[in-house]
């Protein structure tokens, strides 16, 4: 059995599972490193593994033939990469790339399916997670259609903060432009505006969030909406798990 790296945090989804379920599952996992820029899977290709990040961020991007892109999902310690396997499909519709280095629990696709078939708690939890992903995708679609780049950038930076568990992280303007599906100059202008108001500091790809509450006010309601969706569907599982563990939060 792989041992828990002291430095790595937990994956929130795996943390919902009660002790015996979780131990049985983790016995088959490997702990792997995620390296920034690493391609986890190519759209249309077979998924070899699922990943439950404990740290680091994986970005899911849909690309058009002319090369234009849009980020349609982002997975950190709150999620799982390879969710189409939950639906019985062994390919991914999106490109998955590591946006921020970190660590993850990794399991082979076939083994994952076996656990999914045998472990009802895992199945139910991941169904709830699927429900959240779907809701968040719908919301992101509407958000990218209607909301201003500045508000979307603020939202994206807050998400990044939550997933990175810290106010400082690296992200290039080019990457942000791809994520938001806008031209780079749009990101530059929006980032400048947030910087001038003292909400963030941004130099050479290093972002520091200086005023989180103000940045949340500058973002659209979708930041809070996506969080509420997640807590609403999975929150009760977290409290169940705590009861199992008999431990305070």
């Amino acid at each position, binding site marked *: 059995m792989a041992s828990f790296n002291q430095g790595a945090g937990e994956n929130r989804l795996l943390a919902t599972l009660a002790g015996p379920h979780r131990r049985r599952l983790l016995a088959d996992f490997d702990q792997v490193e995620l390296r920034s820029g690493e391609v986890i899977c190519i759209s249309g290709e077979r998924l070899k593994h699922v990943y439950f990040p404990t740290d680091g961020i994986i970005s899911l991007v849909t*690309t058009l033939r002319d090369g234009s892109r849009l980020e349609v999902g982002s997975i950190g310690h709150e999620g799982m990469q390879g969710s*189409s396997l*939950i*639906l019985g499909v062994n390919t991914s*519709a999106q490109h998955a790339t590591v946006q921020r280095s970190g660590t993850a629990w990794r399991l082979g696709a076939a083994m994952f399916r076996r656990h999914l078939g045998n472990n009802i708690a895992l199945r139910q939890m991941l169904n*709830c997670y699927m*429900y959240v992903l779907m*809701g968040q995708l719908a919301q992101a679609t*509407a958000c990218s259609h209607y909301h201003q780049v500045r508000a979307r950038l603020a939202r994206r930076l807050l998400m990044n903060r939550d997933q990175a568990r810290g106010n400082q992280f690296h992200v290039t303007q080019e990457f942000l432009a791809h994520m938001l*599906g806008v031209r780079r100059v749009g990101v530059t202008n929006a980032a400048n505006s947030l910087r001038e108001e003292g909400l963030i500091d941004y130099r050479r790809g290093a972002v520091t969030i200086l005023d989180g509450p103000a940045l949340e006010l500058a973002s659209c309601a979708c930041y809070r909406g996506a969080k509420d969706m997640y807590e609403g569907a999975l929150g009760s599982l977290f409290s169940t798990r705590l009861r199992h563990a008999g431990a305070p939060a």
Partner: protein
Amino acid sequence: MAIAQDPRQNYLLAALPTEDLERVRKNLKLVELPLGEALYESGSRQRAVYFPTTAIVSLLHTLADGSSVEIAVVGNEGVIGVSLFMGGETTPSRAVVQSAGHAYRWPGKFLKEEFTLGGPMQHLLLRYTQALLTQMAQTAVCNRHHSLDQQLCRWLLLSLDRLVGNELVMTQELIANMLGVRREGVTEAAGNLQSAGLIRYSRGRIKVLDRAGLEARTCECYSVVKREFDRLLPAVART
């Protein structure tokens, strides 16, 4: 409608093995879905899923400020209410009838029973959900990057695939709501398609005259969605 209704007019139901369909159909109820009716409001409790036969239903996401945009369209190839078997009691989207017709309503408790069996119905519905997610992601990127002309072509083709015949009853205002644009934009795009001889638009009816022309003019998003659907659900795919 004079045409006799049969559950097998829905491609998901038709793809079930006979014994499974026989078990399921006992609890299916044929319902009429008038244009504009909301099957679900976002946040409302879901009691049933719907398998359309002739109706087309639009899934819309509404933002906190009330503006909404279509995230997917469901017709006789699919089912409305997938969040019910994802374990969500409420639906995050609105579902509105975009083209009047019929559907089979299936109460949630039977769906849950069927899911515990883990048979073909579960398999089909989960794979359909993946196809739906692909449609949603493609719609997101299409909205962001493609022209309104192209989006309108995509939207018309997706509707046409789910329609008996080649005429849609649809106001420009409704199309504008679905695509999340101003009505003037739709008027202009529809005018372009009409001048090119691809559609004829009059008094809330859109007749498709040149399907191949629409396919040539639309973005890749239409074929990406269709291909993924056919790949994931070969037993359901039409000729």
